[in-house]
């Protein structure tokens, strides 16, 4: 069988310059969708990046702490109680507090979130943190997140500034990123230093002790089922704490942000508009192409080709455009993602499934545009064109 002439391909590549413009058009529509979707995902992802990092299978929090913003702690005894259950290998307390950080350059203060734990406990398995445990044992030392907002100022190991009106020495950095609850950034210190900063806060604020814990991290022994343990712990521990698997805890946080903010609405609307813009762009391209090859299409019809064949050609063009335009669009998006990530500290991630879902959107966008544009071809009457 003789191979058919790849009509769609030849139509598109006929005028190179026009093809380039068309691809740029599709690429920009793709970019727009990636951008708005990326913002949405980044705002959600950033909220849970710390939670996902925790070295835990089960999380224990105060019953009232339904998101990371709620400053409710629970009694440390609950962790000891949990530890006695069979199948629980370890229990680590994590203390958090918000405190004012003095920007060493401008001397202006900004609130940051302090994460503190017993240095023996592998709470945050980040190599940068693990490597600097020895330094954290010294009094009044801390590690600072280098993805913190620029308002925290510049800091290098050895920088001395103030945290909560008390001197602090930065001994190094780690990389985490900001979220709504952290505000401007995160600080890591030992539980002993946590006491130095927050045990005597003065008259305006409640002081902290190590007796109340913000987050309890439980490790499950090899072979034990976290789900079953969560059930047992929920039944047997007093009702002032809630017990969740790490996945449930992350989900609870995400659900809070989904239901209590307009993030989803705003960016879904913007993505939808970007999609419509894309349809118009591609329609324009295909319509021009159809209009230019008007006579040829009519000839094909006169030769006996069915409408379905012409539909096939236009849809093929649409498909080719969507794929060829998607590639540069995706590449530019990756660049813009890293730009945004650097500028804001948000977690802009391009994952395969997000890329694929945008590819599918692009494809749909081109198909819709193609099927509108093809109506002109189908209505073609050879007699009229050559009349």
């Amino acid at each position, binding site marked *: 069988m003789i191979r058919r002439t790849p009509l769609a391909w030849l139509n598109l590549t006929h005028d190179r310059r026009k093809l380039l413009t068309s691809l740029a058009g599709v690429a920009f529509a793709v*970019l727009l969708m990636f951008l708005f979707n990326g913002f949405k995902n980044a705002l959600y992802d950033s909220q849970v990046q710390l939670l996902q990092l925790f070295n835990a299978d089960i999380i224990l929090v105060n019953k009232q702490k339904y998101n990371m913003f709620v400053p409710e702690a629970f009694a440390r005894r609950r962790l000891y109680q949990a530890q006695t259950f069979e199948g629980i290998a370890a229990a680590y307390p994590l203390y958090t507090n918000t405190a004012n950080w003095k920007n060493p350059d401008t001397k202006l203060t900004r609130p940051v979130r302090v994460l503190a734990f017993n240095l023996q406990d592998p709470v945050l398995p980040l190599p940068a943190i693990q490597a600097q445990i020895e330094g954290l044992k010294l009094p009044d030392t801390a590690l600072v997140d280098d993805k913190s907002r620029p308002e925290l100022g510049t800091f290098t190991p050895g920088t001395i500034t103030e945290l909560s009106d008390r001197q602090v020495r930065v001994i190094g950095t780690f990389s985490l990123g900001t979220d709504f609850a952290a505000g401007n950034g995160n600080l890591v210190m030992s539980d002993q230093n946590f006491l130095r900063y927050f045990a005597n806060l003065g008259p305006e604020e409640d002081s902290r002790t190590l007796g109340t814990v913000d987050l309890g991290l439980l490790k499950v022994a090899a072979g034990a089922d976290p789900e079953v343990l969560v059930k047992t712990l929920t039944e047997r521990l007093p009702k002032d704490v809630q017990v969740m698997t790490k996945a449930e805890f992350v989900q609870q946080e995400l659900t809070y942000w989904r239901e209590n903010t307009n993030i989803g609405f705003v960016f879904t609307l913007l993505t939808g508009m970007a999609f419509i813009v894309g349809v118009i762009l591609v329609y324009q391209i295909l319509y021009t192409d159809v209009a230019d090859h008007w006579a040829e299409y009519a000839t094909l019809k006169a030769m006996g080709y069915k409408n379905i064949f012409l539909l096939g050609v236009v849809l093929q063009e649409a498909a080719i455009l969507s794929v060829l335009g998607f590639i540069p669009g995706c590449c530019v998006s990756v660049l813009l993602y890293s730009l945004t990530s650097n500028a804001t500290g948000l977690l802009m991630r391009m994952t395969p499934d997000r890329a694929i879902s945008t590819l599918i959107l692009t494809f749909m966008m081109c198909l819709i545009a193609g099927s509108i544009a093809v109506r002109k071809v189908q209505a073609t009457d050879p007699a009229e064109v050559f009349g």
Partner: protein
Amino acid sequence: MRTPLAWLNLLHERTRLTVAIAGVAFATLLIFLNLGFLGALATTASQIYSRMNAQIFLISPQSLEISTTETFPQERLYQVAGIEGVQRVMPLYVGYQQWRNPETRRNRSMFVYGINPRDPVFTLPELQQPETIAVLERPDTVLIDRFSRPEFGPQTTGLETESDRRRVEIGGQYSLGGGFAADGTLITSDQNFRRLFDPRPLDRIDLGLIQLQPGANVEAIVQAVRAKLPQDVLVLTQAEIIERERTYWIATTSIGFIFSLGVIVSFIVGTVIVYQILYTDIASHIAEYATLKAMGYRSRYLFSVVLQEAVLLAGMGYVPGLVLSIGLYTLATKATSGSLPMSMNLGRAIFVLFLTLFMCSVSGLISVRKVISADPAEVFS
């Protein structure tokens, strides 16, 4: 009269024109939406100050925005009270409390304003009623904002619940709206604020409100206050404090960056759309343009034709874009039940009109090169 060539060129093919207009309209719409979201966030963030009954505000230089404040000594207010033209000085205390929804027993962060019940801190007549003042003066009694999110629970007068583990009674309601940092607010007396936020002392305040006598010269008094007070407080007019709050939300959170990038990319997409339209138009009329040139028309004339087309497209696309945007603004405000108050203002409409004109002109300038370089001899060879 000259033949309106640009107009006829565009009108020549109706379908293409419609698509072109739709393209420009949607690019405009995208820009409007991004600016609208940005504007809505700035409005929500700063509207609280426009509801306050003061012309001059005192705030600690270390305060970032209304919900992240540092306190300063109340004496600063007393120092100001004697300045001529000052009618009244009022302290305002703010803070977060964990409010228990009496039905679900779930806690949620509530933003609390502490005021002297006899001070007209807010421009809300319902707070000035003698009976409301009497309610505010009762111990452990609060007023709740009707615009608080439903998650805070029922707002019935007389209902008892807990705020940071202290029993409180709802004494009444008011309508204020939470702003950006709070989705529910309470108003309580300074004495109750002291009880709720124990051990916070009342001699350190979060915000100082200065009300002037009618007809007083605000600028002159601001200068006098600045001269009198030490550097530990900022003295700001209402417009200045609103601007400060806006700048905080837009410049130092990710929000400003996100929507500005949105505007820029939408602008580029608009440029690409218009370029495509103009380029196609030129490509299909290249012979005509060459003929014009052969007849002796200057490049400048052709240049102006393409630019005119660009401007016409901008105008014709802008109008439906604007109308659609106003519709979407209303829709978005409704869909978010008022928490995202998007509204069109003249400044933004004019700004986007210029942006659209600029966008179309840029595309016109890029696509016109093909016409300028059109050589009649080549086209007809």
